[in-house]
């Protein structure tokens, strides 16, 4: 025990303190740091007594649109049978008319005979078939990017892609008119969302400048925050095209990454249908991620993201919709591939579609009481009431009357529907008119004429 007796006094005191520390540690109870039980037991009882449960089914009026739906029998192709009445389809997003195409159907049937109907598994659990890999290759080659990844549901595509890259503490600048899928993706990402006015580049620049000043005040924090700009190529809620050249300029000036959502512009804009990048002549390497769903022009189900390998590969493990949902049924992948073939073989359909869009856009100008919202190039545009009655319900009822009258005259239209309580920036109620390649000029004229008459009758 000699060394202990030779120990200096300060050391023995220190060791004594440490032993006391150990004893205190061994006897302390675990506690959570932010335990906030500000309520006494009595207050808790009071709160429990006062609580009234909400009804399981909230009271809804009888003419809620979800309770009065139209029943479609047969495919929603050019001629659609709604509630037993044959109409011309101006409501389905079948821009290139590939929904009822015999080649696409034959390819799907062949794939059905070969693979069966479903895949019964996500991509990681034997759900990857050669059709999926082929479709990914074809899409990557078509969009001239390095790699593409397929999702089995269009809504889940962008809603999984955004949270895969943008996490807590990152900043996303997004347009106010972004579609619901983007909003859900942003909500899932838990990032800081900064909304800028629709297609207003000065507003976006103002937000980016403010962020830059914040970054200069705190450079260490700025170094670990990622910045993203999310825009749609062709906005579904307004029918306008995003100003991509200015966005790319802002991207390089303020060092943000661009995510482009091309659901409506894929297969519509551009010389060969490659979307808004081809439309503006911007190199696809400037865009970090392009996401689109195959449910519009390609007339299939699902969606894809394309970009550099480095970017897309990340989604193979982090894309929640990719890893945890069953993969796309092979017959739909084969249908999408055949649709791509058709798109590549006749690039003339895109200019035909543009012509038709311009035509009906011109024909619908000057309707009493309704204004056309959307660019003349957009095949999906909106008709909004020029003067709103003041309440959204009344507007919706008026528009529904117009839609019903048009349906009586065998023009199938639809209103744009939103989850009113869940949308961040609820667009005004509108009728959404969709132009497809299959509609003849006479039908376009007749539709414009019908809408004009009906609007005249209902709104005046």
């Amino acid at each position: 025990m000699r060394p202990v007796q030779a120990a200096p006094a300060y050391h023995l005191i220190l060791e004594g303190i440490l032993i006391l520390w150990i004893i205190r540690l061994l006897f302390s109870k675990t506690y959570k740091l932010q335990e906030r039980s500000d309520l006494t037991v009595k207050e808790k009882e009071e709160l429990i007594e006062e609580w009234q449960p909400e009804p399981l089914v909230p009271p809804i009026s009888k003419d809620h649109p979800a309770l009065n739906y139209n029943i479609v029998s047969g495919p929603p192709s050019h001629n659609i049978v709604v509630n037993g009445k044959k109409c011309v389809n101006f409501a389905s997003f079948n821009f290139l008319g590939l929904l009822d195409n015999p080649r696409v159907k034959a390819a799907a049937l062949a794939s059905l005979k070969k693979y069966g109907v479903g895949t019964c598994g996500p991509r990681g659990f034997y759900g990857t078939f050669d059709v999926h890999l082929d479709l990914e290759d074809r899409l990557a080659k078509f969009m001239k990017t390095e790699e593409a990844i397929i999702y089995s549901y269009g809504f889940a595509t962008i809603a999984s892609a955004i949270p895969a890259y943008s996490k807590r503490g990152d900043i996303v600048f997004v347009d106010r008119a972004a579609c619901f899928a983007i909003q859900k993706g942003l909500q899932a990402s838990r990032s800081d969302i900064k909304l800028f006015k629709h297609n207003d580049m000065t507003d976006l620049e103002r937000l980016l400048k403010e962020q830059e000043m914040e970054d200069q005040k705190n450079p260490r924090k700025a170094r670990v925050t990622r910045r993203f700009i999310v825009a749609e190529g062709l906005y579904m809620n307004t029918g306008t095209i995003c100003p991509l050249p200015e966005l790319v300029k802002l991207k390089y000036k303020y060092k943000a990454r661009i995510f482009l959502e091309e659901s409506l512009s894929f297969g519509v804009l551009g010389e060969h249908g490659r979307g808004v990048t081809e439309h503006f002549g911007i190199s696809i390497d400037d865009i970090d991620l392009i996401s689109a769903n195959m449910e519009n022009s390609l007339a299939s189900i699902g969606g894809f993201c394309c970009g550099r390998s480095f970017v897309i590969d990340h989604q193979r493990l982090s894309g929640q919709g990719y890893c945890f949902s069953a993969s796309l049924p092979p017959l739909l992948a084969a249908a999408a591939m055949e649709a791509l073939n058709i798109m590549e073989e006749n690039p003339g359909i895109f200019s035909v579609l543009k012509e038709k869009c311009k035509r009906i856009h011109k024909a619908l100008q000057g309707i009493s009481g309704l204004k056309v919202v959307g660019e003349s190039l957009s095949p999906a545009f909106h008709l909004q009431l020029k003067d709103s009655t003041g309440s959204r319900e009344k507007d919706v009822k008026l528009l529904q009357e117009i839609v019903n009258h048009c349906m009586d005259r065998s023009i199938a239209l639809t209103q744009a529907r939103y989850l009113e309580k869940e949308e961040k920036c609820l667009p005004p109620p509108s009728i959404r008119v969709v132009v497809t390649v299959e509609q003849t000029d006479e039908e376009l004229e007749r539709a414009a004429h019908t809408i004009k008459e009906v609007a005249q009758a209902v709104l005046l």
Partner: protein
Amino acid sequence: MNIGVAHSEVNPNTRIMIRRGLWLTYALGVGLLYIILLSIPFFGVPVAWTLTNVIPNLGMYVFLHAVKGTPFETPDQGKARLLTHWEQLDYGVQFTSSRKFFTISPIILYFLASFYTKYDPTHFILNTASLQSVLIPKMPQLHGDRAFGINKY
């Protein structure tokens, strides 16, 4: 599938320190380090003990208190990106058994080291400094604190 292995821990870092066998591995690892240090010819017993105290403490400081976030992607969208491993343990609950183990083990090492170095002043300064560097960040009052803003982001 395996029964009973599904769990809802989104961040494996929170539960790793209480895994079966980790404490024993840590103790045996420190013992092995001591034997290796002792087998180097020009280290005497005191130097070996001081190094056995300092090197695990240094490792503990770097891995538990300096490095932030997780080495893997977690499904919680980066909740623990700015937290050190010590702050992530057990989701921030203080005085759990793994925290107690990792607070007490440097102290035990310190006692042994100071006994075997015969309370020599130089060794004392080294050992005490090393112990402080590993004890002070573990205090619950310093949870989430970053002194002088170093290592904040």
